[in-house]
Structures are given as structure tokens and as C-alpha cells.
């Protein structure tokens, strides 16, 4: 079998060598960052260096960065720790937002963009203090949300804004203040850092109570001995965010080649969010009538890794809630797969994908023809 092609960067990205190196050398640092002796101080310095880099990536100050165990935890901490009685979330948010507690959803349009008028109406209708959650870029479609506008509306109604920037980090420039976000969540392993490290950026003056309590680490906002190697790897990956951002035009070219190639191979390919501003690396496509699950398995047999829907919930495959929220018909929603590219993706990978796709598209066309007389 030829070398497998990995096109599932939005599930997790291969680690950057710099991040691996940072983790390995941190793995050999003995101390607990809370200890006052030399070993502890060395460990503390690693954590604080990483904090500086993560802060710089997010346009924040180091004191605003709270390290967590994952992006999921960062979202949970923001939502449960903000103490707001009401959670208003875009309908395409990640499960770690939608399931953190009961959420009221705000619809998106057919391109997957948040309906700002609906957000405003919802805030006006119910005066309780709210937290509004709007992701910067969607994990399934890559569609970029109007976060700054949502923040202005939220603030006008006394609400706080949480921006889930997990998929955007390392792909788009992030500036906490320009976005107007009060809380912003990040995950290391989506940008070439390790799994097991995330962060919540908390703007000044935003009160936050801890989810995990104990030794008072992270200024009392997240107890637990710091994941030294994970945080060091996170810092190294965050330090390379600019390199990731600079790589986007190349990825956009690859992605466009892929989408154009698929269109040429026929079938009524739907590209989700095609007309919206999207991340350059993400393409959510559907070939109606060909179930996503079969497509993913067929591609895997050809050595290509993509995913159907979000990769989260332990493999259970269901129609993408994002596609459904975008108002796609059930057949298209059930057929949506996600192709996501990254720093190791090369032109030859696109060739391989198109090669593998050809028989699938043909088979589909054949099935259509056979089905025609009966219809």
C-alpha cells in the first residue's frame, strides 16, 4: 500500500517537529512548576515562556492566558465559569459548547454564517445576563464567522462573548481585542502542538470561577499540576502560528485544485459554505446519494484519511449537525465529508485524492443510470 495520505487536519494535526522537540526537552525537566527550588523554577520558566507565545498568538497578554487540558475544557470553563444564566450559541458550535450546559441556538444561513439579526432579536427578547458563543472558524466547513460584529451586538446588550478559536489558530491571525471577545478558547493539537493542552484567554475584568479547584495554579482559575511537556509543545506550536498563517495561500490553491477536480469528475458536488469566507484548508463536500460513511471507508481503503462530520463522539456517525443547521436537505447532510489540509499536505496528495475519487464518482454515476428506469 502506498504512503497513507492524511487529510483530517481539523480532527488533529501532525505535530510540528519544533513542538516535539520542545516536549521532549520538557519531558526531561524534572520539577513541579509550583516548587520553589531550582528544578521548580526551571519548570515554571518553561510554562511562562509558553504562555508568552500563546498570548502573542492570540493578541493577548500573558496574564490573560489560562492553560487547560484541552479546547473542550477551555470551552467548558468559559461557559460554566462565567456564571451567566443564559448561553446563546450559534447552531454550528462545537459540542463542547453546545453540551457544556443547556444552550439556546442562534441560526445560521445556508452558507453557515451566523444570523446577526437573529442574535440581536434573541438578546432583546430575554434580558437575562447572557454569554454568546460564536466560533471564529467552523470545524466542519471552515466557514469564518462574523465574531467582531457578534461581539458588538452582545456587548450592546450587556452580554459577554466567547470565541472558540480552536480551528482558526495557526490559520488566521487572532486578536482578542479586535475580535471584541471576552473569552477565547484554543487547543494545541489542532495547530501542530500536542493533545492534552488547551487554553482559555480571559480578557481583563471578566470574572471567571474555576471548574477544577485545588492547588491554586493558573491564578486560581485552573487547578492541577501544569502539563509541562504539553504546555511547552503548545508554546512551540503557537510560536509557529505565523508560519501556518503564511502557508494558507498555498493550501487555498491546493484546496481549490481539489474542489475543481472533483467538480470535473462529475456528480452534483455540493461544497458547503462555498460562497462564504472559509479557512483555506477546509473543504466540506457532499455527493448526494453516496453516504458519508461509505465514502470515508472507501477512501480509507485507498489510503486517504478524511472524516464524516466531527471526529468527536467516539466514532458514532450521524448526519452532520452543521450541515443540518445550514438547511441542507437530509440526503446532502448525510453525505457530507470533511477534507482538511495542513502543513504537510502536498500537491501529490491532491493527485492521490482525485485518483481515488474517480472510481467512486463513476460508480455513483453508474448507480444513477441503473436507478433511472425504476424511478
Amino acid at each position: 500500500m502506498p504512503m497513507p495520505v492524511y487529510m483530517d487536519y481539523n480532527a488533529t494535526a501532525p505535530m510540528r517537529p519544533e513542538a516535539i522537540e520542545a516536549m521532549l526537552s520538557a519531558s526531561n525537566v524534572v520539577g513541579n512548576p509550583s516548587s520553589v527550588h531550582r528544578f521548580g523554577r526551571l519548570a515554571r520558566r518553561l510554562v511562562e515562556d509558553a504562555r508568552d507565545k500563546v498570548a502573542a498568538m492570540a493578541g493577548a497578554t500573558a496574564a490573560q492566558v489560562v492553560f487547560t487540558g484541552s479546547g473542550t475544557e477551555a470551552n467548558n470553563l468559559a461557559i460554566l465559569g462565567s456564571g451567566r444564566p443564559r448561553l446563546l450559541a450559534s447552531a454550528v458550535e462545537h459540542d463542547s459548547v453546545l453540551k457544556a450546559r443547556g444552550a439556546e441556538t442562534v441560526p445560521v444561513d445556508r452558507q453557515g454564517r451566523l444570523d446577526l439579526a437573529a442574535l440581536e432579536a434573541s438578546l432583546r427578547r430575554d434580558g437575562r445576563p447572557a454569554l454568546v458563543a460564536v466560533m471564529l472558524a467552523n470545524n466542519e466547513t471552515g466557514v469564518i464567522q462574523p465574531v467582531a460584529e457578534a461581539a458588538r451586538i452582545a456587548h450592546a446588550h450587556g452580554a459577554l462573548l466567547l470565541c472558540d478559536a480552536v480551528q482558526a489558530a495557526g490559520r488566521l491571525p487572532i486578536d482578542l481585542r479586535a475580535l471584541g471577545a471576552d473569552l477565547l478558547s484554543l487547543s494545541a493539537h489542532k495547530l501542530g502542538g500536542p493533545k492534552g493542552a488547551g487554553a482559555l484567554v480571559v480578557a481583563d475584568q471578566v470574572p471567571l470561577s474555576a471548574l477544577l479547584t485545588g492547588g491554586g495554579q493558573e491564578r486560581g482559575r485552573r487547578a492541577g499540576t501544569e502539563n509541562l511537556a504539553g504546555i511547552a509543545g503548545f508554546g512551540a506550536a503557537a510560536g509557529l502560528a505565523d508560519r501556518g498563517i503564511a502557508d494558507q495561500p498555498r493550501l487555498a490553491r491546493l484546496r481549490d485544485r481539489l474542489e475543481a477536480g472533483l467538480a470535473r469528475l462529475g456528480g452534483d458536488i455540493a461544497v458547503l459554505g462555498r460562497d462564504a469566507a472559509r479557512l483555506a484548508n477546509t473543504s466540506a463536500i457532499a455527493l448526494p446519494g453516496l453516504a458519508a460513511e461509505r465514502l470515508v471507508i472507501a477512501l480509507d481503503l485507498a489510503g486517504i484519511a478524511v472524516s464524516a462530520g466531527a471526529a468527536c463522539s467516539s466514532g458514532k456517525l450521524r448526519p452532520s449537525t452543521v450541515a443540518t443547521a445550514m438547511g441542507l436537505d437530509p440526503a446532502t447532510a448525510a453525505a457530507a465529508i470533511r477534507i482538511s489540509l495542513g502543513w504537510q499536505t502536498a500537491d501529490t496528495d491532491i493527485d492521490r485524492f482525485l485518483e481515488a475519487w474517480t472510481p467512486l464518482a463513476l460508480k455513483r454515476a453508474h448507480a444513477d443510470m441503473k436507478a433511472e428506469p425504476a424511478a
Partner: protein
Amino acid sequence: MNANSKPSEAMNSTTDFRGKNAPAEPIYLDYQATTPTDPRVVDAMLPYFTQKFGNPHSRNHAHGWDAEAAVENARRQVASIIKADEREVVFTSGATESNNLAIKGVMRFHKDRRNHMITLVTEHKCVLDSARHLEMEGVDVTYLPVQQNGLVDLAVLKAAITDKTALVSIMAVNNEIGVIQPLAEIGKICRERGVHFHTDAAQAVGKIPLDVNAMNIDLMSISGHKVYGPKGIGALYVRRKPRVRLEALIHGGGQERGLRSGTLPTPLCVGLGEACAIAEREMAAEAERLRYLRDRLLKGISDALPETYVNGDLEQRIPGNLNISFAYVEGEGLMMGIKNLAVSSGSACTSASREPSYVLRALGVEEELAHTSLRFGFGRFTTEQDIDIAVENVVSAVRRLRSMSPLWEMAQEGIDIKSIKWAEH
């Protein structure tokens, strides 16, 4: 070391934690704060940083399967060291999260019917803090005292359990004084009364044999970086039969059977698994070696220095811990005098504050003596030479500081320090 694995180049460039007799490289004697990662653990983790980087929850391509298989193997290794079933192991970000999840999770689930829990005053901060948070949510918490040796009085525990008690949370091994609580006896009491028994075993796993069934333990918190594994990973054992029900703390993708959402860090899970497997194999021999080192350290110190006191029971104790009060010498000042040794005075989390250790106070150690205590934690990579250097350094520093201590002077003159009216400041 595994001959097939490539030791990383990065490893060679970093400091050797074993410590040598050179002032530039202090000897690490703070194994209860954190243990060095075993190089074999790092080797096991390496492939999962690079070529095997898949998301273990991506069930529909090969990258994900590799990662999932590795995580499940690690889960079996963790289960094995505590004699549990692998389906009973939930990975978390560390023992702090495990303790939060166990305590808040069980109490929030049960508090409508049974809103009482019992814990010890000497528990780790994260257990006590979780309990305090629950108090604010209306849970009744009983904080049991300990005896002078640091152990819970079983009769007192029995008497504290009521019909409303849902949970008893008692640590397996104390982080400051290393004493081992009578887990089997506590488990038996809890089972008889139908109360869930949670134990924070962060300091116990890999140090003493644990058996969740024989000990009737319902929930157990495990830490990676206290068992020569990586930081940022831990586990919570949750009994299936009879099933323990609890509320999740972190919600989302529904990983870990809904008990703990978030992408699992494959390399860290593998690291924790490997660390447990190594500990399970080597625990008995290691304990024997450490006991020898412990006795050597204690004898070296107490033969040379009068008025030193071991805090906590010396028998019911893991062999890698000694907590000693050096009367008339303040602990932080002493630490500065032995800067060739990395030890801690009090717990790592509180050593920046001026309060004497609450654990020592709970044993009835007087405040002035509590201020003079140091914790020596040693383990897998500590050598006999390290111990000998430690003894030499500690003895000379204590002698020097006593010669300049006004309290030592008074004691030599026969003046009772308690007879003096000290000003509070």
C-alpha cells in the same frame, strides 16, 4: 531500555536529574512534588508524537485506529496495576481533575437524596477545595481529624457516617508525610454502610500494592507525573459493579463514556500506561531499595543531630518519603543552606505562603516545630551516593544554623521557649 526504541536526541542535551556531586547539578529529592519521567516512558511515547499522531476518536480511518488501539492498551495497563477492569478507567488531565470529577461528580449526582460527604483534614488541597465548593452548593461535609501518626481513626470514621452520607473520600498516601491510610478497613466500613469510597491514590499508585476489589474502592484518582509518567495525564477509576454514578464535569464530544469530554492525548495516555506497567513489574524490588535508602538517610541524620523528629507514622508509610522537623532551625532558611538539594518545606502548592503546613498542624505538631520541617522525597533514580551527600549537607547546614539560632541558644541554656511572651507579628 527497549533495544528497539530510539532514544531521542533532545534527551541527551538536557540535565541529568540523577544529580551528581557538583554544585551546578543539585540532587533531586522532591519525588512527592513530581517524579522524573522514566526514559522508558518517554521512549514509549515518542512514536505517538510523530508518525502515529491520529485522533483516537477518528474511528473511520487507520490513523485513528492506531491511536485508539494505543489508548486502549494503555487503559489496560492502568487497570492492571490497581486490579481493575479496563472499562472502569477514565483518562483525565491529572489527579486534580480526577479528584474534582470524583467528588463533585458523585455528590452532584446524589445530593438530592444524600447530601453528606466525609473527608480528612490532611487531604490534598484539590480534595479540600472541591469539598468547600460543594459546601457552597449545599452539601454537608465532615472533615475528620487524624491521629498523631497521621492516620484516620476508624472508630471516628464509623461514627461520622450517617444515612445521608453518599461519599467517603480518604487519600491512600499523604503527599507531605507519606503515611498510608488503612484502605481495606475503610473500604469495608464504607461497603457495609452502602457509602461510596473514593481514594486519592496519586502518591500511592506504583508505590504500594492496590486492589480496588479487595479494598472495596469505588473511585480512585491516579496521576501520571507521580508515577514516573508525564504531567498532564491522570485517570479516574470508576467501579462498574455495583455501578458508581456521577455527573461529568467537562461536557462535549462524549468521550470516555460521557464522563470526560475532550480529545485524548494519545502519547500521554501511552506514557501513563507504560509508567504503570513498569511500576507494576518493579514495585516490590524498588520499595526494598528505597527502604534501605530511607533508613540510611534517617540514621545519618538522627545519629548526627539531636532533636530531630519524624512527622507521621514510620511503619505505615511509603519508603520514598521522610518528613523531618529540625527543631530550632526554620525550614526555608535551611532549604537555602542546602541549595545543592532540591527538597521542599511543606507541600509544593503552599510553600510560597508563610503558613506552616496544615498537614503537620493536623498531626498536632506545634507551630514552631512545623516551621522547621523538610520533606525528603526520593525514588527510582536516587542513589546511595545522593543520600550520603544529602546527609552530609543537611547535618552541616543544621549545625551551622543552630549555632546562630536564638532558640537553640535558649534551649541550651535551659530556657523554656513557651515561657516567653512572644509578640505576634
